[in-house]
């Protein structure tokens, strides 16, 4: 398993530079409350990004995650309002995500269609079906115990932060210490070699979509519960956020390499820039351009470094 730390260092350097600017221009950014808020706001992105990372590790992609998030939100809230216990609500959200992931996974492996096409299709099918059944109506007056999942705290820290930490640590363990986790890297680096070494490649390729869907379902529980209403059209553009977190965090878009730490840093980068720009009192009209630039800067350091390395390497 080849791991390149360059991207992580690159993002870390960028984040430190940003921190330096903030320290000089807006020291009030550095407060415990603000860090808590930032971590809570990225928690659902980071949990879903772990799932996306598993998909991308095998050389595939899932752009239906935003639609999955909105379906899981609607189902979970409906179930909770129907009076089902919280444990069941969790199972429904995770199960629905896994089921939608299974649809993607089966289409990809059974018909050998590239995942970008499958999930581009299921993205519209999922979203269209949801609006067809909900008629676009929103859900109000969510039960106390449901909201408590996202708003409650444990040992002084908000639940979503705990969830993110536990999920990412578990993910890191699964990816590095279990046969299934290692198989993802093998399938992504070289599917033929993986097959020869006895890995059931189609099973692995389908299973990552199920895992991704399930994690989006779990992320839903720490997203939908934080707000007073469930929008039936929620999660638009969520796929961009999640994919950005994963690929900026150094996961190779063609599969085979990437780390959970990178995903966490990627999610942090995605989540912190908007808040930082507000503290720096930059006009909102220029915010988007700067956020795009930050992504480039965060990967540029790594790119230039490896570029130099290959150049000198090529000479020798």
């Amino acid at each position, binding site marked *: 398993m080849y791991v390149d730390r360059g991207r992580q260092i690159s993002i870390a350097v960028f984040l430190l530079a940003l921190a330096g600017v903030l320290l000089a221009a*807006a020291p*009030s950014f550095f*407060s415990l*409350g*603000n860090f808590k*808020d930032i971590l809570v*706001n990225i928690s659902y992105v980071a949990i879903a990004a772990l799932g996306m990372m598993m998909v991308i590790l095998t050389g595939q992609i899932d752009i239906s995650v935003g639609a999955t998030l909105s379906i899981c939100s609607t189902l979970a809230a409906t179930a909770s309002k129907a009076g089902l216990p919280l444990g069941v609500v969790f199972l429904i959200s995770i199960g629905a995500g896994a089921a939608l992931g299974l649809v993607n996974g089966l289409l990809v492996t059974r018909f050998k269609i590239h995942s970008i096409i499958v999930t581009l299709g299921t993205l519209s099918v999922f*979203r269209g079906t949801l*609006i067809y059944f909900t*008629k*676009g*109506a*929103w859900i*109000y*007056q969510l039960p106390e115990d449901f909201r408590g999942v996202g*708003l409650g705290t444990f040992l002084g820290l908000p639940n979503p932060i705990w969830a993110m930490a536990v999920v990412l640590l578990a993910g890191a363990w699964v990816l590095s210490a279990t046969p299934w986790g290692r198989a993802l890297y093998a399938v992504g680096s070289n599917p033929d070699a993986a097959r020869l070494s006895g890995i059931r490649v189609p099973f692995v390729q389908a299973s990552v979509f199920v895992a991704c869907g399930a994690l989006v379902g779990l992320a839903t529980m720490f*997203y939908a519960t*934080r*707000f*007073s*209403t469930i*929008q*039936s*059209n*929620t999660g*638009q553009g969520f796929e961009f956020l999640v994919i950005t977190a994963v690929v900026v965090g150094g996961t190779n878009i063609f599969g085979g390499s990437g780390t959970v730490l990178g995903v966490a840093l990627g999610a942090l980068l995605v989540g912190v820039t*908007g*808040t930082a720009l*507000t*503290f720096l*009192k930059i006009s*909102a*009209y220029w915010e988007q351009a700067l956020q795009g630039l930050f992504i480039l800067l965060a990967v540029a350091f790594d790119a230039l470094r490896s570029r130099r390395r290959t150049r000198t390497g090529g000479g020798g």
Partner: protein
Amino acid sequence: MQHVRLWIAVGAVALLGMAFAQKQITIAMIPKLVGIDYFNATEQGAKEAAAELGNIRLIYQGPTEGRVDKQIELIENFITAKVDVISVASNDPVAIAPVLDKARKAGIKVVTWDADANVRDVFCNQATFAGIGKALADEMAKQVGKEGEVAIVTSSLTAPNQNAWIAEMKKVLAKDYPGLKVVDTKPSEEDQQLAFRVTQDLLKAYPNLKGVWALSSVAFPGAAEAVQQAGKAGKVAVVGLSTPKQMKPFMKAGVIKSVVLWNPIDLGYLSVYAAKQLVEKGLKDGDKIVTKRGTFTVQKDDKSLQILLGPPFIFTPENIDKFNF
């Protein structure tokens, strides 16, 4: 006996009326976008009116994002489909004008509602930009006083209605409340999570912030949620537009004191009545539109005709329980 004769007469007139009016009218009604609560409420009102009137075939179809190019594509198709009325809440008054002009040349009546367009036969006006701008500015001054830092959470930075309200608000601020300083304007893109996050950021980046305007039915609950979770309920005012159903919990919790809005059900309802009358009898200055939800008067304006729904309504803890939309 007298009564029976009267009822027969009424019945005969009604039958006669139905025979004349029974031609079906197809109304293509296009909201700014589908899938948000506000435009679900206008749809509810429109359907109610269509059911009352009987001879209306109502098609309620809009883009999934509030974009004028998607609306234009829909309208082009509705012209081809030969509907009788195109009734639109326009995402851009100028960009949509050529296609509405084309519709009128094809003999289709054009009604605008919620947001006007430069070409139309009649505009069902829920409240003028100036009226809303002033209501929002006054409401803020009432809650936080005439001095201090305030911020705006808008829909998208290019949203025409919101931009027009902001311009009007700033005029009122400059004239009546020069001490209220707008420190920042943030977009929320019809996304509750984003509205929540930017409000949270504003509260921390501007510790002296006294109030936030939240200018869409999605931004308002998101902003209120952020103020509530930051424990600043009652310390930072949130003023904005939304539906009462959505904002009721925040009002009960003391996070907000008021909600500025017209009744969207009435608006959708009125637009269908106006469309029917426009097709069957035509409309002119001074005409009355009589409905079960009240009587509305047609007035001349600078483009053609408009029908005012009434001044923007301000929901307060005293009256909010009476409304269910």
